[in-house]
């Protein structure tokens, strides 16, 4: 496969092996984003930190309103009009992109960081054929004429589509085909990082699996970094190397997928795993987490999960637990993290969660 020349800093080499000795491609530190609303400021993202390494697929997981989409939007520099970053940094290949102006950010978008939306119907322009949309993105990277045509065919082939889709309009494509086109567009200018917001949520199970397989295969072949935003821990378990779990605007746990899902250390992650049906296991009773996430206008003083946590102690209601590294790469924000093995055992019992 031939890739078009794209300007890249020496900071990143496609030959570098991913590992903890290389600085991360993306380093988000203490990011805070608020929305101004009629009823006051909502701190949707409140001190979020995580890293993404080259050639790593990271699942950013949480329930609706946890801030995962807001955090991801800040990475691409496309935010709602009433949203603003109040503090923190987003180091991408060593540069803080939060300091970038509109023009600088435009140069980064598509070329270095690209975006795959939840519903490609919203990102594809309904009045343009697929071919025109491909050419438009390639033009931003200075690819025109015959090279653009060749690159288009190559991209479609990468995502498993034939050239017959080129003359079609978005509404003539199935949901799965639209997501494939959206992935092709995101890869057009050979970016380093792809942010995919619930890329398979709206799809049927079989199509979902096919699109995930395509995305994972390309991610490995092209040594891409991918942030996959999802509410579905099964999707993360299926294809992500690591996972960042968010709750009420904060990261509560992060680390390699096998560690976090196999031996969760934060009670919220434990509860989430209990509440998730597992087709390969017995149809045991699913255990819900009582209550609902806090109102982000008025968050609890201590740990935000404390009001719903069956293991909360006095300290949890008073002080916010910091995100601390417990094992290599495994970070947890819980005052009782050292007791995790005991809590994990208790968390598997339904009675623990029924109060």
């Amino acid at each position: 496969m031939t890739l078009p020349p794209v300007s890249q800093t020496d900071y990143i080499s496609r030959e570098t092996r991913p590992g903890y000795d290389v600085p991360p491609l993306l380093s988000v530190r203490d990011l805070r984003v608020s929305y101004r609303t009629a009823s006051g400021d909502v701190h949707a993202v409140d001190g979020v930190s995580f890293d993404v390494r080259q050639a790593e697929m990271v699942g950013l997981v949480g329930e609706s309103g946890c801030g995962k989409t807001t955090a991801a939007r800040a990475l691409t520099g496309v935010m709602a009009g009433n949203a603003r970053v109040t503090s923190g940094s987003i180091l991408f290949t060593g540069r803080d992109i939060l300091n970038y102006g509109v023009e600088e950010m435009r140069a980064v978008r598509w070329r270095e960081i690209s975006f795959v939306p939840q519903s490609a119907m919203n990102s594809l322009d309904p009045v343009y054929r697929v071919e025109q949309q491909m050419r438009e993105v390639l033009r931003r990277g200075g690819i025109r004429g015959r090279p653009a045509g060749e690159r288009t065919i190559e991209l479609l082939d990468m995502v498993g589509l034939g050239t017959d889709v080129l003359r079609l309009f978005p509404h003539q494509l199935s949901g799965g085909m639209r997501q494939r086109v959206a992935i092709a567009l995101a890869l057009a200018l050979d970016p380093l990082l792809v942010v995919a917001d619930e890329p398979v949520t709206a799809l049927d199970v079989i199509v979902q699996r096919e699109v995930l397989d395509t995305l994972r295969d390309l991610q490995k072949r092209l040594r891409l970094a991918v942030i996959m935003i999802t509410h579905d821990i099964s999707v993360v378990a299926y294809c992500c190397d690591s996972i960042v779990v968010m709750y009420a605007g904060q990261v509560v746990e992060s680390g390699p997928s096998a560690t976090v899902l196999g031996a969760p250390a934060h009670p919220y992650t434990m509860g989430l795993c209990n509440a998730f049906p597992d087709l390969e296991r017995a149809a045991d009773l699913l255990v819900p987490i009582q209550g609902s996430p806090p109102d982000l206008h008025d968050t609890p003083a201590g740990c935000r999960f404390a009001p719903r946590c069956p293991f909360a102690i006095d300290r949890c209601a008073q002080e916010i637990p910091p995100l601390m590294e417990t094992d290599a790469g495994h970070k947890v924000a819980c005052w009782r993290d050292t007791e995790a093995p005991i809590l994990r055992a208790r968390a598997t019992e339904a009675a623990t969660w029924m109060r």
Partner: protein
Amino acid sequence: MDAMTEIAPLIDVRGLAKYFGRPGSKAITRAVDGLDFRLARGETVGLLGESGSGKTTTGRLLLRLTEPSTGEIRFDGTDIASFRGSALRSFRARAQLVFQNPFDALDPRFTVRQSLAEPLRNARVPKHQRETSMRAALDRVHLPGTEATLEKYPHQMSGGQLQRVVLARALILDPDFIVADEPVSMLDVSVRAGILNVLREVRDALRLTAIYISHDVALVRYVCARTMVMYRGKIVEDGPTAELVRSPRHPYTVALIGAVPVPRVEQNREPIPIRRSQGGRIDVTIGCRFRDRCLHAHDRCTAEEPTLRVVARDHRTACHLDL
């Protein structure tokens, strides 16, 4: 299933079809294309299928929210198309729909009391009995049957609470039959489990016949003892859920079950046994409608349409192969 229910099913569907588009034109959509099945009293059945498979249309037909092109649906022995006036009103009370999206299903200007009172009023339940019914209905879905709950507006409640109100409203007239279309797809995981548990309790406590329409295999397995799988307007497999999930017989069901990810890192990542849909339509009036995606299709599958045949006790599949 005992002998009595075998004899008198609550729902008896024969040759049911719904076509959209001008009759006789080439461009008609065969949304539902010939269904035959029976639901015993108290049976909870999952209707699985991808978008466009006809499952939602089937649910609407069962509740007479849309008229069939051909075929009939017998409810307690009577063709539902024949209901008029008070018989229709009685059917509307006995057969209820549970809406998919709790955020849309309730009128934002109505309190919980007003939302729950509406079906009672329509069914001409005397005023003095309504309050008791409302509190009992809330109790059934584990919402406090208090004045505070009854006076709440939708915007003051969480998604999980709203879905409970929606369910309480569907159950308030003690129906015999409910159709739940994707009842938890809009809810977050941590609250979803709570609703699924309520659905299980309802299944066990009331002698309710229910159809759960979903694309979610895990949900159907959790709540339904029996599962029917639809593909392009037809039922391709129908059997006990546990057996169907453990050893699916139709190649489409095999692919569907195989494609469901599980929340553990160790899992099957083999390519699923199905050809990718090319988006085009095949002629479904001859042969098997799954043949273009099936890895096992042979000459007979193009020439002859497979009909549902018994492969095990209470288990039927529409496939020429013996998988």
